[in-house]
């Protein structure tokens, strides 16, 4: 591990040096536009310092290092609150998929380089209003148009679409076959005529997800990234990548230390809350859950380092961590009593309990709801039967809406 530790130390030092210019403090009070601009400069700095595309092939401007270096860097980077999340999806799924499935290599390389330097952002156009957890049930359609295609329909929950230059999209090209057999995978220019992006405001107040409308959007066939009718497999490949994005045993909420500090600072029934069994129990249970997840994640990295495929238990993280974070955040509000009312909708959900609480439902739904994750584990890992699906094998256009 010493090589890696040395690499980690070097990266940590560099990140430290970037903090004054791009870190938490530097971002205070910035408008989203200003913050994004700062984010683009930070991404360029990462690229120049050799910390962009860490585990990507060098011919695409990556560093050619391992996944282990990547997650090590992510863990260190997380500490400083840099404006990197604008590029999380872009560099997380669409661009890697473009590298894997894009046909025109020159074009691909140009896009990848601009994405790595924060000049261009990609989004992922999967979910639809009718869809929910049923990806293969999508309705946006692409019809042959000359020697290209014409896209009509609507996507939703598209993160950062309003800042995106390009996107990858799954559409229905054949409604006459069972639903998952009639899909094809393309990339699209988000600035093309007929593309309309409308931000969706979330319960917590912010709005980084969008509705995206396609009205007679024309694309040439070189935009196609899968065989016609073979888009579902590429879509699944895209989603699989998500499992290897760095996890957080805090469920993307505050660290447990912050709860312990809170419990030490307030009184309950006339005694310090940290001495109250109810609070102690939640601290202990959450610690055990989080340490278990951390151990699972560390083992997954060790296996990847040893060239092995990590076990399926990795997919537990989001399910248990976010669910527990939701209840722990509610308890933190109870503990503060009427002091909990004071609320800043822009506070970080990693540091503020109210923000963590109000954004928790999004966390439980985004990237696979609890129920979807339970089904996936049940079927893929435990071999339990698939749910009854009346639409199975039925031509898409014969499924009752």
């Amino acid at each position, binding site marked *: 591990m010493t090589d890696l530790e040395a690499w980690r130390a070097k990266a940590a030092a560099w990140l430290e040096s970037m903090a004054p210019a791009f870190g938490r403090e530097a971002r205070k009070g910035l408008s989203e536009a200003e913050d994004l601009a700062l984010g683009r400069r930070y991404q360029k700095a990462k690229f120049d310092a050799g910390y962009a595309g860490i585990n990507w092939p060098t011919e695409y401007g990556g560093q050619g290092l391992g996944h282990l270096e990547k997650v090590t860097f992510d863990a260190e980077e997380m500490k400083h609150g840099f404006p990197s999340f604008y590029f999380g999806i872009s560099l997380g799924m669409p661009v890697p998929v473009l590298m894997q499935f894009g046909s025109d290599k020159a074009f691909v390389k140009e896009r990848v380089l601009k994405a790595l330097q924060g000049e261009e952002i990609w989004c992922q156009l999967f*979910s639809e*209003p009718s869809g*929910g*957890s*049923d990806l293969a*049930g999508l309705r946006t359609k692409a019809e042959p148009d000359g020697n290209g295609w014409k896209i009509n329909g609507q996507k*939703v*929950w598209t993160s950062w679409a309003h800042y995106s230059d390009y996107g990858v999209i799954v559409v229905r090209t054949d409604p006459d076959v069972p639903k998952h057999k009639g899909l094809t995978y393309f990339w699209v220019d988000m600035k093309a005529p007929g593309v309309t992006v409308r931000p*969706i*405001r*979330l*319960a*917590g*107040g912010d*709005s980084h997800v969008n509705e995206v409308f396609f009205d007679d959007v024309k694309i040439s066939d070189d935009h196609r990234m899968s065989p016609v009718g073979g888009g579902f497999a590429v879509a699944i490949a895209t989603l699989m990548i998500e499992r290897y994005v760095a996890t957080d045993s805090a469920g993307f909420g505050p660290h447990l230390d912050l709860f312990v500090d809170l419990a030490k600072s*307030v*009184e*309950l*029934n*006339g005694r310090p*809350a940290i001495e*109250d069994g*109810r609070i102690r129990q939640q601290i202990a249970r959450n610690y055990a859950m989080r340490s278990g997840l951390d151990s699972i994640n560390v083992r997954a990295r060790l296996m990847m380092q040893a060239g092995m495929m990590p076990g399926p238990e990795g997919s537990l993280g989001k399910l248990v961590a976010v669910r527990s974070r*939701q209840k722990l955040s*509610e308890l933190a*509000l*109870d*503990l*503060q*009593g*009427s*002091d*909990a*009312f*004071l*609320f*800043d*909708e822009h506070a970080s959900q990693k540091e503020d309990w*109210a923000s963590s*609480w*109000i954004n928790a*439902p*999004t966390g*439980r*739904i*985004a990237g696979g*709801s*609890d*129920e979807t994750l*339970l089904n996936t584990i049940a079927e893929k890992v435990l071999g339990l039967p698939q*749910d*009854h*699906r*009346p*639409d*199975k094998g*039925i031509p898409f256009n014969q*499924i*009752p*809406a």
Partner: protein
Amino acid sequence: MTILYDESQQAIATESRRVLEARVSKDALLPLLETVGEYHRPFWDTAKEQGWTALALPETHGGLDLGLVELGLIAHEAGRSISGAPFLTSSFGAAKAVELFGSETQKARWLPGLASGETIGAIAFSEGPDALPRRPDVTLTDDRLDGTARGISAGLAADMAIVLANRAGTPVLAIADLAGVERSPVPSFDNSRCLADLHFSATTAETLAAGDTARDAALHILALQAVVTAHEQTGGAEALMEIARDYALTRRAFGQPIGAFQSVKHRITELYGLVELARANCIHAAAREGMADFITAAAAARLSATEAYDSAARDCIQVHGGIGVTWEIGLHLHMRRARSLAIEQGSSLFWEDILVDRLAGEAA
């Protein structure tokens, strides 16, 4: 012993639901989240016009001489529609404090206004985590209040407040006229609660009770409010359970209504159970007003209602999937309200302790 609602009580429920469904909508409530200190005036006007403000107060002072059972029914319906202001509970608590512990002069001065709704009352007991502090920060010296009461719901709109203060080391319960008292608004996740810090500085106040009596009196007022709030929470939870059920019946996935999937089906059914338990405890508690075990019954109602509303908010949104977390659909109005009601009048942690002290025979 619990009760069955009689016809007139059932009529109160039906009528108040009809009126509220006609006059309160989420589109009117959503913008209130983005301004500090605004409440939904049509709701409060309705409460006054319908006599809800007078319902549980004595006829001799402009009230209707009904009780907690009837007010609870209104609160339940208000909870269903996400009440646009906290005054139904806050003014009721203030009025009961005056009615139970005040002099005839004090009653004559405050009750008619509180009964008509022209006067708005607030309860200033809690200090952050402590819903009933033994040594409040606010002090009373020679009938003058000093210090700050934090995060007081209705505080921005109230004309008077019942304050739990510290007089030379012993707790006192006092009435304060808020005219001219400096208040700083508290921006919150549920702004129509009109939260404020009240900064007393040589504010004239009249004592209602002192010493242990003051503490018992304050707890009694808190319990009365808690029963009203529990009805409101139960109404909110009931609404969410029904919204989830209706969505599960219409929304389809994999070729069938999502309500056919047991994860959704059983989740909603568990909510039904929480709602019915809360309802049963509420009815029981309302019927125990004035009895020896009232505090115990109030605590049980409060605990099950808080659990029901928080759980319903979590699960109703979860059942909706992505659409459930959007601003426009407004389920977060319930989720926010579930939390503010869970904290006002003391959290579950507070009521668990109150309840167990009694069950274990350690009551103060």
